[in-house]
């Protein structure tokens, strides 16, 4: 397993209504241990996974949305957000939690992992992946 592959996780489902968002995050975190190149895409209803202030106590579920903040610690620093999906849903990037990482090549400065992109840019991320995981 010396080969390094590019893994792209595409998150398209809202959280809580189905378990896909939670179980996808479990794969991403486990996958981070494998030293592959990892990119995450949040698009369609997947953008709701990153909304601030989620509080699922009233529906009896746990608030796993806080776990996304740990992605930077797992060296996951490329997170693509589909602009069109946000717009359709009346959301802006400010409605999402900010995901950051510390750049070891730049004196451990804290930098944003989030990239607001167009469909065209997403298409090239997808077309450059070795492995696509869709949730």
């Amino acid at each position: 397993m010396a080969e390094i592959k590019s893994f792209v996780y595409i998150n398209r489902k809202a959280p809580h209504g189905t378990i896909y968002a939670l179980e996808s995050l479990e794969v991403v975190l486990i996958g981070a241990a494998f030293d592959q190149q990892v990119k995450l895409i949040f698009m369609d209803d997947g953008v709701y996974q990153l909304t601030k202030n989620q509080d699922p106590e009233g529906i009896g579920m746990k608030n796993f949305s806080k776990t996304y903040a740990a992605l930077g610690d797992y060296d996951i620093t490329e997170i693509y957000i589909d602009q069109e999906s946000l717009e359709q849903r009346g959301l802006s990037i400010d409605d999402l939690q900010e995901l950051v990482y510390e750049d070891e090549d730049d004196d451990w400065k804290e930098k944003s992992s989030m990239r607001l992109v167009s469909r065209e840019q997403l298409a090239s991320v997808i077309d450059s992946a070795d492995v696509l995981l869709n949730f």
Partner: protein
Amino acid sequence: MATLHTVNKSPFERNSLDTCLSLCNNSGSILLIEDAVVGALRNTSVSERLVKAIESGVKIFALGEDLKARGLPEDRVIEKITLVDYTGFVKLATENDRVQSWL
């Protein structure tokens, strides 16, 4: 003879809200639950359809617990959509004559 319609899927992903709107007459009520509550926000690609339904007399509700779970602020909800809790959901089911779940 009023009908309560429930919708539980995101209107950005599925056609069930649209079908519901096409079959809900102006004595009816629609309750958005689970992932469907994302449709309750203002300025989305579906909000105009909901506003039109409200203007035609349809009453629209959304489950507050589901909105809160998804981090969607109450003050961004379309005016005249009423938030209810589970007890309010039960009450809506009793006040209408039947319940139609658009699964």
